[in-house]
């Protein structure tokens, strides 16, 4: 420890603590414009200068760069120090255009604040200024104005060190220095992802969001801390409200986002709330004209309740089904499944995890006893030596996780990528195994073969904590690297190297995503991931685990809340003894003992008339589910179809009744992020219209269908959830809002009010007791290429949009960046087919045909192609195959056979 005095106060700090850090630890404020936590000190602004006396010698030093020395006497506000700071500010103003009245940063500018504090209003160093450099407004969301830039480098350090993108740097030297992407082109021509973290880091108005022109900081009515509604990272931010409208967002230092946001969270999470095309009143379809007509709530609710009860009476409870929305709060989802179970009288309830991570829920439940990410994001990105990334592109699908993985790589963490495409991380990987799509099981068995061959398996862990080892050992014997190389189209030596690297790393998590799950063998793929981790004992400890990055903001919660045909809330199985009885007692009505129908089976059953009435809350299967024409046929076959929605989606158009709900920004609740962290969603605004709180709609329907459900607030619903769900027993809104939790959320299992939550699962004991090695054998995809359809098509997501675009598509700037369908194909295939980059192409499968634009390159291997499913002008789901996995009933989005021709 080092001892010193700051402003006369005795201070004791760890060695290598800087004077700035020491002062902050003791609550002493030292001004700084350039300092960024967790990044090497920059020392560029010179404002943190302090007077340090030691051994009779006095020096003026920047507090951010200087480590404390034993016996230092530090003065942070001496007369000399103040004089130096004034001079520094004076010099800064000599090349800073002072136009505070019209500056967007007025009232939110550190330079202005310090000038005010130190009484500097104008420069005494008049001379040449960088006033004539045009503002770079090429970025869709923000501008860079050199005349306001003080060259503190916070933006550059944020982009390079924290976001890890390296899109911008300091260009030129001396007086001509500026910040930019390149000396030849503008900001938007580089690799900038428009995440805007640099803008939030800027202490002046040099980097400014374009929307800042619309409000002043002092006009802000309130800032509401809430959870991002896009992916499952669970980023925390403020919604900035002015005159009852959300005008901006501001990142908050949440446990999973560490003060960062991505382009969608920062920019695409509020335009849709105030979109003029929100559905504002209930709509009932006129059977004769086929047009929707405005209805009163009573009319609409009466019709819905009576129709469902009619169908139930005539065809039985199992002719009804209801899906919950994975992007809505836990409380809403809980009420939807409660309505389906108590009023419909069936377990035919599901959520869209069915089409993304149901394989993870089922697979990890079977092998480990709990179908969720085992370790927190912070743990697997900060404590790991090596990351094994399988079928996951976090830089685009979970961008803020991607940023934290980039930070890990900067710290020297190794990376193995197993992915059929040259995703961004493939370039940064130590080894990239460019697997043929659909060969994950073979790949995992190959890895295990090498580990056992090299004797790197963790015998003690296997003996004490697992079962089924002998069987899997027998199976993987066949999977020699050479055989696997042939199946997966990879290099056998790379596979060997990867296996050895993974096994030898002390702390190495497997992070995977839909590249593993969305196959007809998805559940086996997932279990192969846990097999690998079990073999080397990398579970139940820090920096390890098997970590599915969940899709939607609350898809984890939708599964947790029991919107599943097999599970009541908290994964209490319909089939397990006593569970149905427990809920019958809690809810006071008899419940079905039969496991329900999975969402992906509901559509075929609608065609065969086994399902006749469907209630969908906030899903758009016409866009998202495989084989669109089959989905449309199913919806058209239904006797009665109700949708609870914000917008007239493709699916809503097939509904008989549309009930307008409200968005995440208009209600209270909780989302559970991918790391099982339950975080608050808070109401920021009320939007004009007759829309109603979604839980109120459900509760009104329940009462009309004969179930006496009292009206509850979101917090009261969470209390009911806690009372019937052991893993949520310790969670309540009150606790989440308390000082104890302090914006960090609670990670389930959280079995009691004094339980701190569970960051890492399976420590010491698996939820299942002993973990199980699933004996997985490689089985080829359901549809493989042939002469007629010779190319494999994979589907996925891009950075700028979220699934159906119902939300992100209403932010015009995002549509300007990426707004049209495209297909990535290999240059060898393109040359054979006479297709050039940018050509219009016709893509056909056995199920349908669409047009798109070719992006030709080497991102995909020969014989393979890839498409996003966001865009209606060529949605990949007209082509995809609804072949289902035997356990989880997840469709095979990642492999179908197509033919590509010039359009």
């Amino acid at each position, binding site marked *: 420890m080092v001892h010193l005095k700051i402003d006369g106060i005795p201070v004791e700090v760890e060695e290598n603590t800087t004077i700035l850090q020491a002062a902050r630890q003791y609550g002493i404020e030292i001004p700084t414009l350039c300092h960024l936590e967790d990044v090497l000190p920059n020392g560029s602004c010179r404002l943190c200068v302090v007077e340090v006396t030691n051994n009779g010698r006095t020096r003026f030093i920047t507090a951010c760069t200087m480590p404390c020395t034993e016996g230092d006497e530090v003065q942070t506000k001496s007369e000399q120090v103040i004089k130096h700071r004034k001079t520094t500010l004076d010099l800064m103003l000599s090349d800073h255009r002072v136009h505070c009245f019209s500056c967007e940063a007025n009232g939110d500018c550190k330079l202005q604040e310090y000038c005010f504090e130190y009484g500097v209003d104008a420069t005494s160093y008049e001379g040449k200024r960088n006033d004539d450099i045009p503002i*770079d407004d090429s970025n869709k969301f923000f501008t860079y104005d050199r005349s306001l830039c003080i060259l503190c480098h916070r933006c550059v350090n944020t982009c*390079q060190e924290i976001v890890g993108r390296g899109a911008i*740097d300091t260009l*030129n*030297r001396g007086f001509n220095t500026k910040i930019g992407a*390149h*000396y*030849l082109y*503008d900001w938007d021509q580089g690799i900038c992802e428009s995440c805007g973290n640099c803008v939030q880091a800027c202490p002046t108005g040099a980097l400014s969001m374009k929307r800042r022109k619309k409000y002043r900081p002092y006009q802000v009515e309130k800032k509401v801390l809430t959870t991002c509604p896009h992916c499952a990272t669970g980023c925390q931010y403020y919604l900035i409200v002015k005159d009852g409208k959300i005008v901006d967002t501001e990142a908050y230092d949440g446990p999973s986002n560490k003060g960062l946001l991505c382009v969608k969270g920062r920019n695409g999470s509020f335009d849709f709330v105030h979109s003029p095309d929100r559905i504002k009143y209930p709509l009932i379809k006129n059977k004769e004209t086929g047009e929707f007509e405005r209805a009163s709530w009573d009319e609409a609710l009466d019709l819905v309740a009576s129709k469902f009860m009619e169908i139930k009476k005539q065809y039985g409870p199992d002719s009804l089904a209801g899906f919950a929305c994975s992007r809505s709060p836990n409380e809403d989802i809980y009420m939807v499944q409660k309505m389906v179970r108590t009023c419909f009288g069936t377990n035919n309830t599901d959520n869209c995890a069915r089409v993304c991570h149901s394989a993870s829920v089922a697979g990890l439940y079977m092998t480990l006893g709990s179908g969720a990410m085992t370790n927190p994001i912070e743990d697997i990105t900060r404590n790991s030596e090596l990351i094994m990334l399988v079928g996951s592109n976090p830089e685009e699908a979970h961008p803020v996780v991607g940023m934290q993985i980039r930070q890990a790589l900067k710290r020297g963490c190794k990376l193995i990528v197993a992915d059929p495409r040259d995703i961004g991380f493939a370039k940064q990987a130590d080894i990239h195994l460019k697997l043929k799509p659909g060969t994950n099981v073979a790949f995992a068995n190959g890895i295990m073969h090498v580990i056992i061959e090299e004797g790197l398996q963790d015998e003690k862990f296997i003996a004490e904590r697992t079962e089924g080892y002998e069987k899997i050992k027998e199976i993987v014997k066949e999977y020699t690297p050479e055989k696997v190389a042939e199946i997966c189209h990879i290099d056998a030596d790379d596979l060997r190297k990867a296996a050895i690297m993974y096994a030898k790393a002390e702390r190495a998590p497997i992070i995977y995503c839909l590249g593993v799950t969305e196959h007809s063998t998805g559940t086996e793929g997932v279990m192969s991931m846990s097999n690998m981790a079990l073999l080397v004992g990398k579970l139940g400890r820090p920096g390890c685990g098997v970590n599915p990055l969940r899709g939607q903001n609350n898809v984890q919660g939708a599964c947790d809340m029991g919107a599943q045909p097999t599970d009541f809330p908290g994964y209490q199985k319909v089939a397990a003894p006593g569970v149905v009885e427990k809920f019958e007692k809690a809810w006071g009505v008899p419940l079905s003992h039969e496991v329900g129908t999975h969402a992906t089976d509901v559509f075929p059953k609608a065609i065969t008339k086994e399902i006749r009435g469907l209630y969908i809350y906030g899903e758009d299967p016409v866009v998202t589910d495989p084989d669109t024409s089959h989905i449309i046929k199913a919806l058209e076959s239904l006797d009665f179809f109700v949708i609870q929605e914000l917008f007239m989606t493709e699916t809503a158009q097939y509904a008989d009744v549309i009930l307008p709900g409200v968005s995440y920004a208009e209600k209270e609740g909780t989302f559970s992020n991918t790391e099982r962290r339950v975080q608050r969603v808070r109401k920021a605004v009320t939007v004009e219209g007759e829309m109603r709180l979604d839980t109120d709609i459900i509760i009104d329907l329940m009462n009309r269908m004969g179930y006496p459900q009292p009206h509850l607030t979101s917090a009261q619903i969470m209390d009911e959830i806690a009372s019937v769900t052991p893993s949520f027993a310790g969670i309540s809104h009150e606790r989440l809002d308390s000082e104890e939790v302090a914006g960090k959320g609670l990670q389930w299992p959280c079995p009691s009010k004094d339980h701190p939550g569970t960051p890492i699962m399976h420590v010491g004991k698996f939820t299942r007791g002993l973990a199980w090695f699933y004996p997985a054998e490689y089985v080829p995809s359901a549809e493989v290429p042939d002469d007629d359809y010779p190319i494999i098509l994979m589907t996925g997501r891009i950075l700028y949009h979220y699934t159906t675009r119902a939300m992100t598509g209403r932010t015009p700037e995002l549509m300007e960046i990426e707004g049209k369908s495209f297909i990535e194909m290999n240059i060898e295939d393109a040359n054979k087919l006479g297709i050039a980059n940018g050509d219009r192409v016709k893509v056909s499968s056995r199920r349908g045909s669409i047009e798109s634009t070719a992006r030709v390159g080497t991102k995909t291997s020969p014989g393979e192609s890839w498409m996003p499913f966001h865009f209606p002008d060529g949605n990949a789901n007209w082509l995809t195959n609804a072949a289902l996995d035997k356990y989880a009933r997840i469709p095979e989005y990642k492999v179908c056979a197509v033919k590509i021709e010039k359009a």
Partner: protein
Amino acid sequence: MSSEKKFVPFQGTKEQEEQLRKVIADHKGQRGALMPVLQQAQEIYGYLPAEVQQIISDEMKIPVSKICGVVTFYSFYSLYPKGKYRISVCLGTACYVKGSNKIYDKLQEVLGINSGECTPDGKFSLEACRCIGACGLAPVMMINDDVHGRLTPDCVEDILAKYE
């Protein structure tokens, strides 16, 4: 803010690219390798055009913005090739007193380039120098090995016309 400058078209050869890739391979895994690689790249190509920076960025996995930052910071690195005719204007004390800055400004105006740059046709490159030991002829400039003295802004164009 985009630079509207026209650059001499990149004319790197396959051999040069092979040499560059070898240089990068030789520095693989070394810390602080960027500066020496850039230095050797400049030896290979004579300057560091954007295309060369991009190759270095891809191969060394360093963002191109960072390479731009380094290249534009150090005066040693040149973004422009040397022209067929290299013009050096003396801005030393004697020449300056005699108004060489006016000659320099005139050259920039006539050629349409700034100091350190090269005309897009690759003909003339312009730089300043400090005293070539011909103070008696001040103000002076050199074009390749020819010394031109006692200059006035008006005679600049006639002199340039002599160089084809």
